[in-house]
């Protein structure tokens, strides 16, 4: 009897339970209809955001970033300050410096004498932009340039400033801009890496570049920048060893892939498939890279356009030419670094050499992209990690002086890729020390670059260690005035 009652109770409960359960299942089903990724374990919003990349119609498809490593002086290039020449040797007024911190290199100086540009400035093009005599070739393409004179940054020394520009944070370990774009937009051409790095070095005082600058940080390893070597063989270890035919290589890869597949079935580790894909890409690169690095098919006039140095591997000119070739073959982000701009002393002399290295080839790159109809979809960026002081570091003479690091105001330029052409944006005071108009912070610059690529900088995120990361961290505003 008791058992019966118990069973009765249980039956009743089971029925009740099941009938209620059906309602419950219904509600869960409805819930999953409204939140599609409810059971996929992924955050719906993050997935949706990534799937919708680019977030809107992009203006630029590719970027070539000509990083002038060591920080070229804005006062000898794009920011014309006749007052500094007029007040040569006079003390930097405290009302201008406003107690700003200086580097250890000049903080101990007993005086801060102003020094003007050794080089003459003239106005060029329809924009009447002021450019110094160091850049005769860039002056001739001034109407394609979007010069920003009001950049400012937070770091005052090379490494943190460079890292800040490239990764959005002064400490290392974050993904580089190129890695973010590779992650967000992928490669156009799957036979090449989406992010390539080319290094060159001028004769001026140099500062190192480190592979952390093109690191993938916490993103998947395939987003890391691929550094091209300065030799005749730009991608190392790409050629087959002597005695190995392409067929043998193919067979070897097939066997490795089969073994990796066994492993994958056992462990389900996505890194295994990534690895297999990387092997396959390397195999395709074996034909794609020689096609690109072969300059023999370039017309003769290219040598005159870029300058004869462009045929000497490892020079800035050669890297500009290679950058154009990589870019037109669908490489999303080509990052150049040209070292040697850190002119703490002997600045005029050092800058003559550096400018000679970069002026013609930088202008040539713009002209070359333009004459192929590619400038509209390729964003070219030229600039350093900060600017240089308006006062002299060390001994002062009109033709021989030095300048220390200056993060408060400096100049860069962009061209093509949906930025306005033939404009000069932002203004600094007569001393070239502080920004008086339209400041552009490094994060603003990054936000703008992402915007040009069709990406909302607030939406390109990656969740890592429990927080969402962005290139612009929690900052940055798109500078609409720069966008055509």
């Amino acid at each position, binding site marked *: 009897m008791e058992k019966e009652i118990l069973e009765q109770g249980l039956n009743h409960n089971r029925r009740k339970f099941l009938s209620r359960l059906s309602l419950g299942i219904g509600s869960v089903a409805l819930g999953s209809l409204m939140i599609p990724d409810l059971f996929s374990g992924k955050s719906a919003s993050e997935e949706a955001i990534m*799937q*919708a*990349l*680019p*977030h*809107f*119609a*992009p203006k630029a498809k590719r970027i070539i970033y000509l990083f002038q490593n060591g920080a070229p002086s804005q006062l000898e290039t794009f920011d014309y300050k006749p007052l500094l020449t007029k007040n040569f040797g006079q003390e930097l007024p405290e009302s201008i410096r406003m107690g700003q911190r200086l580097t250890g290199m000049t903080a101990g100086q007993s005086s801060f004498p102003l020094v003007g540009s050794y080089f003459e400035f003239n106005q060029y093009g329809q924009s009447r932009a002021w450019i110094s005599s160091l850049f005769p070739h860039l002056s001739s393409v001034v109407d394609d340039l979007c010069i920003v004179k009001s950049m400012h940054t937070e770091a005052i020394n090379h490494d943190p400033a460079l890292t800040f520009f490239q990764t959005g944070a002064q400490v290392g370990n974050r993904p580089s801009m190129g890695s973010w774009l590779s992650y967000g937009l992928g490669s*156009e*051409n*799957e*036979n090449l890496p989406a992010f390539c790095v080319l290094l060159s070095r001028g004769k001026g005082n140099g500062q190192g570049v480190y592979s952390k600058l093109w690191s993938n940080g916490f993103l998947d390893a395939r987003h890391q920048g691929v550094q091209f070597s300065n030799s005749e063989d730009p991608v190392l270890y790409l050629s087959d060893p002597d005695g190995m035919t392409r067929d043998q290589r193919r067979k070897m890869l097939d066997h490795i892939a089969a073994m990796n597949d066994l492993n994958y079935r056992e462990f389900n580790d996505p890194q295994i498939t990534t690895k297999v894909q990387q092997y396959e890409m390397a195999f*395709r690169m074996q*034909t*794609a890279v020689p*096609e690109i690095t072969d300059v023999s*098919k370039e*017309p*003769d*006039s290219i*040598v*005159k*356009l870029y*300058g*004869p*140095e462009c*045929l*000497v591997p490892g020079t800035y000119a050669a890297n500009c030419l290679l950058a154009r070739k990589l870019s*037109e*073959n*669908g490489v999303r982000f080509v990052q150049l670094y040209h070292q040697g701009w850190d002119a703490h002393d*002997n600045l005029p*002399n050092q800058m003559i050499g550096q400018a000679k290295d970069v002026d013609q080839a930088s202008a*040539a790159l713009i*002209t*070359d992209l*333009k*004459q*192929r*109809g*590619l400038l509209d979809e390729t964003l070219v960026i030229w600039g350093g990690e900060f600017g240089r002081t308006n006062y002299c570091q060390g001994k002062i003479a009109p033709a*021989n002086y030095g300048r220390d690091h200056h993060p408060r105001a400096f100049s860069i330029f962009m061209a093509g890729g949906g930025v306005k052409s033939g404009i000069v944006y932002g203004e600094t005071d007569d001393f070239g020390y502080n920004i008086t108009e339209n400041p552009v912070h490094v994060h603003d610059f990054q936000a703008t670059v992402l915007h040009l690529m*069709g990406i909302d900088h607030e939406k390109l995120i990656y969740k890592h260690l429990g927080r969402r990361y962005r290139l612009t961290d929690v900052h940055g505003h798109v500078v*609409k005035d720069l*966008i055509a």
Partner: protein
Amino acid sequence: MRQYSNAIYWLENLLFFWGGLTLILIFGGDSLQVPAWVQVLGRLHPVILHFPLVILLMAVGVFWVGEKSWKDQGRKLLLLGANLAGVTVVAGLILATEDYEGDSLNWHKWLGIISLFISIGIYFSSKKSSKALKFSTSALALVLVLTGHFGANLTHGEDFLFEPLLAKETKTVNLQEAEVFAHLVQPILETKCVACHKEGKIKGELRLDQISGIQKGGKSGPFVVAGDPSASLFFQRIHLPLEDEEHMPPKNKAQLTDEEMEILEQWVAQGATFDQKVSDLPSDTPLFQLASNRFSAESSYDFASASADKVEKLNNFFRKVKPIYPGSPALEVAYFGSSAFDPNSLNDLKSVKDQIVKVNLNRMPLKGVNLDVLSGLPHLEELQLNFSEVSSNQLKTLEGNPSLRRLAISGNSLGPEIIPILESFPNLTHLYFWQSTLSDEEKKKLTSLLSGVEIDFGFDASEVVYQLNPPKIEYKQLMFENATEVSIKHPISTVQIRYTLDETEPDSLNSPLYSGPFPIDKTSTIRTKAFAAEWISSAEDKVVLFKKGNSPKSWNLLTLPNPKYKANGAPTLFDGIKGKANHTSGEWLGYSEQAMELEIFLEEGQSPKNLKIGLLLHEGAYIFPPEKAEYWIGNGNGWKKLDSDPPMISEKIQEARFDLLSQNLPQEDFDRIKIKLSPIQRLPAWHPGAGAKGWVFVDEIYLY
């Protein structure tokens, strides 16, 4: 219990009060003078209305359950609900005297009144047959729902309820098509203003849902005064402080953004027109700038998307086919990898021919390939054919293409026969035509024929004359035993390389022409330069290669080098090891304060004819040739000074490099040699360290 019935008694009586008041308001509402406190009561309408709606519907539900014991409860609910409906109707009628009119209002008003009277009717007749009850309650429910719906339309806008279900025809407009009013101004009014200034809810007697209303203005004055924003009432209102009662949109509503305010202001400043196109505005006007921020210059497309599967199928490692941006039906096609190019793969594109707007075939080997498939793309706007060896004949297939806007045909050596084809594209805007074979005349002609087209003929190298970069001398060893091989390279394969071994400067006529690696069997200075037509001859490259000399019997270094640069002392000078081009390498003897003085004692019968001294030069590091180089020979009975060449002079800062001092020795009998090298005392004026002392660095002394 008694009290309870009392309440019902009063509530029943109240029903008549509400009914009567409603009738009075219906018939006498037009002449109603509403005092302020009554107006407040009227404005309570949107708050109260939810109570009768819910309670009456509950009553209907209770009646429908049909159990007898519930019926009584249903009647009580009905009584309460009908009373609340009375309050609501009265408040609504008062509110309606404010700025409301239109169909929605009329339907809402009359349905509301009807629901009041139906509920009163049901209450007093609910003892009748259950069939009649079911019918009448159903009618009540229906009328209530409709009343609510029309009311919601009044506050939230027409079609508020079904808007998510209605197919949205949001055609994206591009800059070419955009109209100032329809696409810039009207959307702002619609999202920020029209909810209150429209048919049915004409706040301030202003209607912004029709052009005539905008032109007419409202109770307080004209909405816009064409050409004069500051006289326009809207301009004043939107710029009032947010706290101001007159500020528009009201404080708790969505506010205008700065950009929207700017657009409205500029629109009025431009004359507040209703049919102007953005593209007709001069491009430097603020309104055009604002518009260009909003509308992409890219075209919008009205053709249907291709199925994602079809598009996916076209993608492989060497061809990418994808929408120009997410959601766009338009596709772009790019080919990569010229060695993998298969001309037949072009035919695959036919499956999405209606969607393709851009094709990139740069560097693909198109020689002789049939390009008919390109002419079968009705929406092709951009075609890139740079360096594809395409011919004018192949491009004929595109002749007259009406959609083509941008064409890139650089690097194909196309001649004048292409001109009629280019001329045939009616909508061409950009032409990239670098590396054509057109003469200047033909270029001019093409430019004038295609007057609206931006043509880029690209970089013209013919008038540019630059200096060649120097050739590079390559060798295995700087210091060799018997002989060594030298080669000279230049990155431009077509240049002439000339060189000399006699220390003269190479020239383009007389110096030997380099044709391949050549041997050297004595210490030599190789100087070379590159020459080419249309180029300035290069700077020179210079290398000194050293043949190992004979060792003397012994030596005596009379003056000690600077302690920082003493290497291994005097033996360093005869060890047969060439130092590196770096004065700190520990292979160089450095002198600055005093001159280097050295005596060399020869082996018996060793009668050298020539003596050479290996120097390092690096002006940047203050390392110069010696100011004075003096040589003596002797045989134990005093010294005889030798005549020597004038001293070597540095004229500018150069990279660290090697050089040689050379001294011929007379055919005389001597068994010892003395050398004195005096460092430069005052650096020349052109040097940053002008006036300071210089250095001399020596690594090796050779006897031949």
